[in-house]
């Protein structure tokens, strides 16, 4: 393995992994701060950030072609239809 390859194959994923662990510690710690506000939002934001790290780097969506990105996006967009319209009912009953 050349230096270049080692960075590409091992080091880059390791950095992302370290980032994931930092976020895990953060979300766990914040949940245990008594009286901290907006816990739901913070924990979900961190979860989404972790997901975004995995999608962008581990799954290499960052480098994927437009077509693949479109497929990935479709799932999120359509799931948001499901939530949006269902809660349009629940919240206005």
């Amino acid at each position, binding site marked *: 393995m050349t230096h270049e390859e080692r960075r590409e194959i091992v080091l880059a994923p390791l950095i992302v992994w370290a980032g994931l662990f930092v976020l895990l510690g953060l979300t766990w710690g914040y949940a245990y701060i008594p009286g901290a506000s907006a816990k739901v939002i913070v924990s979900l934001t*961190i979860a989404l950030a972790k997901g975004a790290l995995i999608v962008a780097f581990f799954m290499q969506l960052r480098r994927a072609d437009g077509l693949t990105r479109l497929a990935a996006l479709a799932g999120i967009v359509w799931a948001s239809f499901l*939530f949006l319209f269902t809660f349009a009912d629940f919240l206005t009953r």
Partner: protein
Amino acid sequence: MAEDLVLHEPFEEAARQRIAVPFGVWSFLATECLFFGGILLFYAYARWHGGEAFTQGAKEAAVWYGTINTAVLMTSSLTMAIAERATKGGFRVVARWMLGGTLMLGLSFLVIKGFEYRKDVHEHLIPGPGFKFGQGPAAQFWAFYWTATVTHAIHVTIGLGIIARLLWIERRGDLLLHATSAQGGALYWHLVDIVWVVLYPLLYLVGRP
């Protein structure tokens, strides 16, 4: 699935053949997103509607098991990512060890989950007769807990099957020919990880401390 270096039916162009598997797998992952979207909608409703009683139920979830399992699964994602990159680069030994590592981490996730389930059963946390909280939003939390984690565990098991198959191909010595298979398997495994990363705060961090 697709041999990378050889053109095979129905493809006429290598460039298109190379993106076929990732594109197909990503489309499938979009369906997984909507699949889990359905159960998360149930969670959102139950939590919004159930209020304090829902939180009371959620406090019983074993946060240590959950946190350790999150760490285990995230690490398995790392080994999978290295394995996939190593396969592409042609580093067979690294790929083999990393695939093996992913397999072991995935298995230990299931084992830890099993211990957690044993503890949950012990504490009467299965909705139904003898359930700790009786009927109500707490029971809804635990209905979500069991359905979501069992569904996720089934995904993990399928993922382990895929990894085992990749290892077997590697043993045969033609994993490089199946680089897109490795890519597809890795994408699936990362999705299983993402699902757990999203489930983690919903299951274990409600109403702490």
